[in-house]
């Protein structure tokens, strides 16, 4: 039996307006090389000047994971040649990162929590992009991304499964979104993940040889890539082979990792302090200002939601993971006065719809006040669960306010027993055979058979009859 040892290096593009060391815009999706200044192009003689906003964002992250803040951090040059790295070195931090050891808490599937230590987080600049498929036999270089600030967050190898790795990644994602230091968009590359994976016999203390899977760009792929790499390593060991330390790439189409370069081919990056940049010294006042500007973080909000809205730990942890969804839920719960119902709706229909439409809650057609009103109409028995669904779908189609839709579609629930009795009588009269069968059946079979009559009544009432009343009246009339 083997166990996996996993550590993640997460690269987060910081949401600064300009680049780490130049004044160019960091906006995504612009025409190639339109956001590359003389500095980004590494023209002879140009010099880097650091972006103070990036320090602020890095410090906020450090404070959010309860980390030591590097009072003096140093930028180093990481040397390697590649066409999308204009200077021939990347400015990074090696010996003295801006964020030292910290930790996060992840929620495991069995409801337990686990502390994952974060080794460090450091500031660096992103490279440009090489485009290999646009020009026949040539490679294009787009330097728009070159120099975008990155925070590289390095975990300790304390994750024991692909699921734990994803849970950790989700916590990091949640934090950077709460802190508003990155949009965390993995598809656009604002958050990228390198996974270090090794396996060892269960119970063993020694670490196995690790491989690094580079640049995995979705939560799902992180899980799949790690699982496929764990399986690959197990197969190697069981066949009596040895895992080779190397860098690998995950191919989602074939669900396998492939060798990119071995340790022997690995670069000697020849890190040394960048003489163009002075050490960054952060004083207490700066750090305190960052601390004062911290928003309420997911852990605190989770506690508050369970206390304020009477929802379960689990529901709260799902709801607070995304700051915008958490805000949305809170508005619904406040306005409807129904915490549990609000949680059910948001975690059910709303999240399902968000996933299906692949939109964010901020662009969602059903506003929090719409949903609150819908919940109120259920509470006051104007709607039943079936008609409530109909209204929700109408809201998705932007058909108007909840009451307008109820009005327009005539969806007011029928709770008048006289009206329901009349329909029940009709149904009994129209289905003499079923009635006879019902009356002959034993008690334990009757429950199931009642469903037929309920369906008929609901159909005749166009779904508006109060289902509880229908059940009651039917049961009493049929047993006559």
């Amino acid at each position, binding site marked *: 039996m083997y166990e996996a040892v996993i550590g993640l290096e997460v690269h987060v593009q910081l949401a600064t307006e300009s680049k780490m060391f130049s004044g160019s815009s960091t906006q995504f999706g612009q025409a190639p090389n339109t956001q590359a200044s003389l500095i980004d192009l590494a023209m002879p003689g140009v010099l*880097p000047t650091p972006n103070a906003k990036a320090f602020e964002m890095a410090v906020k992250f450090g404070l959010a994971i309860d980390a030591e803040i590097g009072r003096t951090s140093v930028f180093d040059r990481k040397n390697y040649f590649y066409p999308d790295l204009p200077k021939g070195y990347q400015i990074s931090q090696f010996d003295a990162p801006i964020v030292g050891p910290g930790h996060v808490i992840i929620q495991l599937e069995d409801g337990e929590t686990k502390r994952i230590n974060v080794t460090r987080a450091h500031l660096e600049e992103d490279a440009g992009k090489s485009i290999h498929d646009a020009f026949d036999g040539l490679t294009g*270089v787009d330097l728009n991304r070159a120099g975008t600030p990155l925070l590289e967050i390095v975990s300790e190898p304390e994750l024991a499964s692909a699921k734990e790795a994803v849970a950790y990644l989700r916590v990091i994602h949640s934090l950077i979104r709460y802190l508003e230091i990155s949009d965390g968009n993995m598809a656009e590359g604002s958050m990228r993940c390198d996974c270090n994976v090794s396996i060892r016999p269960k119970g063993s203390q020694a670490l196995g040889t690790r491989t690094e899977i580079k640049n995995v760009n979705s939560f799902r792929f992180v899980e799949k890539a790690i699982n496929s790499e764990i399986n690959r390593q197990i197969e190697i060991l069981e066949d009596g082979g040895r895992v080779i330390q190397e860098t690998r790439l995950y191919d989602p189409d074939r669900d396998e990792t492939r060798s990119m370069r071995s340790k022997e081919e690995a670069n*000697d990056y020849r890190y040394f302090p960048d003489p*163009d940049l002075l050490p960054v010294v952060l004083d207490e006042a700066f750090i305190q200002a960052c601390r004062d500007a911290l928003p309420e973080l997911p852990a605190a909000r989770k506690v508050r939601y369970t206390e304020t809205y009477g929802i379960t730990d689990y529901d709260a942890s799902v709801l607070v993971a995304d700051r915008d969804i958490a805000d949305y839920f809170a508005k619904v719960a406040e306005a409807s006065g129904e915490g549990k119902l609000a949680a059910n709706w948001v975690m059910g229909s709303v999240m399902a719809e968000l996933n299906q439409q692949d939109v964010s809650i901020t662009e969602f057609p059903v506003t929090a006040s719409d949903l609150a009103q819908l919940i109120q109409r259920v509470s006051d028995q104007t709607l039943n669960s079936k008609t409530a669904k109909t209204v929700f779908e109408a809201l998705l189609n932007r058909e108007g306010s909840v009451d307008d839709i109820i009005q327009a579609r005539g969806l007011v629930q029928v709770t008048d027993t006289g009206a329901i009795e009349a329909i029940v009588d009709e149904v009994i009269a129209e289905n003499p055979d079923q009635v006879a069968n019902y009356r002959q059946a034993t008690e334990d079979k009757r429950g199931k058979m009642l469903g037929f009559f309920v369906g008929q009544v609901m159909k005749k009432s166009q779904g508006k009859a109060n289902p509880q009343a229908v059940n009651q009246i039917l049961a009493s009339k049929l047993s006559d």
Partner: protein
Amino acid sequence: MSDLTQHTLLELQSQLQSGAISSVELTSTFLARIERLNPTLNAFITVTESQALAQAQAADAARAAGTAGPLTGLPIAHKDLFCTDGVLTSCASKMLSNFVAPYDAHVVRACQEAGMVMLGKLNMDEFAMGSSNENSFYGPVKNPWDLKRVPGGSSGGSAAAVAASMTPIATGTDTGGSIRQPAAFTGTSGLKPTYGRVSRFGMVAYASSLDQGGLIGKSAADLALGLGVIAGHDPRDSTSADQPVPDYTATLTDSIQGLKIGLPDAFFDERLDARMQARMEAVMDAYRALGAELVPVKLPHVAEAIPAYYVIAPAEASANLSRFDGVRYGHRADSPADLTDLYERSRGEGFSSEVKRRILIGTYALSEGYFDAYYKKAQQIRRLIQQDFTHAFTECDLLLSPTTPSTAFQIGAKSDDPVAMYLEDIYTVATNLAGLPGGCFPSGLVDGLPTGYQLTGPAFSEARLLNAAHQLQQTTDWHLATPEEITHV
């Protein structure tokens, strides 16, 4: 003196201000002299004639309109590693022999904004690596005092151009002595300011923690005038000092009575030629006569300066020169087979052997397993040297030493022996390692060739340093010596 080109910057300034001459006249006169002498001396890589005349016309117009500043209309030339918008900026390398810079260096812009006229771009050792100016893609620069000799380097073109009166003043850069050594070899005055005093923005980097832009001119007073233009804080250079810029000319005439001048023991040993020693004695006597007090001081670690320098400078250079990869600008190999071939041939063809040597030394010094033994050790030595100077300046105001062990050597004499060439910097590199201001000023001839003495001061003591040098130039005539006029061209 009837020939305008023989005047100092200050003299030309007063003639422009009095209206005795126009900037166009002045500029034309220098351009004509450059045209006559450059084929022999090879001091200029590019002469920007039409641009210079246009700037001169603008300067004259500004003077007529009453908007001229103190330096408006005065000519200057820039070492060819200062980027100049629209003008070839080659660093004397094949690598950048096709590189027209798209922007102006801070220094170039500052001179332009002061109304100065750029005559052209000056030859140098490739990427500022060298002490003889023999290492240039554009060929060696000749020393105007003896055409068979080197002018020193790497700012050899700047020194030769000033010595031969092709420009009244020139910019240079000094990483390990590249302003002071050529100033010594050509009988000119040179100043390397405090690290951070002059912005490095637009100055193509050799060794970023040591490089500093400065000036070579005909007198200490001219350097004071020029420094006021190029010094100052620049937010585009993070290592630029946010320190006020004093009026360096205002304190030139201050008395130096009681000035304490330290004589570092390490710089007056047996390596110094007896006749060079005699020139130093003459300088000491002249300073004593001005009321300065000469005191012995110790710099215990400066003997290690050369090895430390030749680890740190190449290490930084190895990264600084990585951007020259044939991808975005500069020399690019013909029809590369693949990426590796593009890199290897572009760089192999674009750099000379001295540049390659330093990249290799630097790459080695930074390599895994060697970093501690070389780079880290060198940085430790650097800190000890900085402490030596700090301590020395508790005992004196300025340090006096020779600039070079000998006078200018013959072209070719050291070009096959890199270590002998590196030892040229023996008296100058410690100043760079400590980031201090250093000046070289003429100290008389030996065998018809110039010698120079060096003053080193605490950080940001340029005003004091130039004051001391100027006072000496008031009582001596060494700085007035000029090479015999070149007529056989």
